[in-house]
């Protein structure tokens, strides 16, 4: 046995106690099932879910991919709050050795911890989120000034990876299933400020209504729960401002 594996073995042998994990089982209707999972050092929520599936109940359904906070696939509701399970350490979020795992809110549950993201991505498209070049014939790189106001606005919104946590956190989505939601509107705002994109006005026409940016209550749950610390609320406020100006100028 090498020194490294000996140390690893020893650290795994230390009894850190057990976690009591309540896991949502079923679809739209279902119930929480309780599992006991041994605690380990540097254990993430995703490690816990994986432990349950591999060692206790192989029928547990969940989604993950990169395990390092890049893809956003593993988002779930952990102790009542949307989190990337791969980037959530048990020691940080479960001081009482108790964990409650549920699927994201506001999206149809496929099974257990997995939701159907289709409507979430459809709304990205419905908010005009697909890039449409201002000049399709332009062969060269666009000359974007790094210090422009528009470039800074894009900077603040562009890092979204579409994990759906803001959509799950949003109370307006819960009240109005037609509402486009924080991620789609955040994407729309970054395109409005992208000088290479040519359909900003069309985006405003698509989002300036009661199912779009005007519906936002500015509760800011989206930015409070966003793992990337983005501010969809600010992006939505930008859309409101731009849409109001466009309406006053008779362009909308």
């Amino acid at each position, binding site marked *: 046995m090498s020194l490294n594996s000996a140390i690893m073995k020893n650290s795994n042998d230390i009894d850190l106690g057990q976690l009591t994990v309540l896991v949502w089982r079923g679809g739209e209707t279902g119930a929480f099932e309780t599992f006991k999972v041994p605690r380990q050092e540097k254990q993430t929520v995703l490690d816990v879910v994986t432990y349950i599936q591999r060692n206790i109940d192989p029928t547990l359904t969940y989604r993950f991919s990169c395990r390092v906070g890049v893809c956003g696939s593993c988002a779930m509701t952990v102790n009542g709050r949307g989190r990337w399970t791969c980037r959530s350490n048990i020691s940080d979020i479960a001081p009482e050795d108790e964990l409650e795992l549920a699927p994201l809110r506001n999206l149809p549950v496929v099974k257990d911890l997995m939701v159907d993201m289709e409507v979430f991505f459809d709304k990205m498209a419905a908010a005009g989120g697909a890039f449409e070049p201002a000049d399709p014939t332009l062969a060269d790189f666009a000359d974007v000034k790094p210090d422009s106001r528009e470039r800074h606005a894009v900077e603040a919104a562009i890092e979204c990876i579409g994990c759906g946590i803001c959509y799950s956190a949003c109370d307006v989505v819960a009240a109005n299933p037609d509402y486009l939601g924080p991620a789609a509107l955040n994407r729309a705002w970054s395109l409005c400020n992208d000088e290479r994109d040519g359909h900003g006005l069309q985006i405003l026409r698509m989002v300036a*209504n*009661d199912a779009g940016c005007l519906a936002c209550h500015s509760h800011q749950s989206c930015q409070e729960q966003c793992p990337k610390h983005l501010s969809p609320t600010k992006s939505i406020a930008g859309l409101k401002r731009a849409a109001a100006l466009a309406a006053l100028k008779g362009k909308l």
Partner: protein
Amino acid sequence: MEHRLDIWLWLLQRGTAVILAIFVLIHFVTIVMTMGNGVSAEGIVARVAGNELFVAFYGLFAFAAALHGAIGLRNILREVTRAGRAADLFSLVFCAALVWLGLRAAFGLYGLAA
């Protein structure tokens, strides 16, 4: 068409909010300044009856409050009940009732000069 109505109502609600913020302040300052002499029906009538400035101020005040409140009510009803057109209609009637009540009060006091 729908998006145009929504954005104009949104703008109108913000515009009336600005009017309300200023007018509520003037209203409170007026109350505090006149309270020193105590409140009496005669005093109020003497101050406001036949006063064009008063009726213009409270007429606009009532109008702004009716629009602001009714648009807010429409937003809440549409979000909570998902009733759409029925919520629009109810809010419109609510707005008309508030305008009527408000203007009736302002013009009623104004007309006491005779």
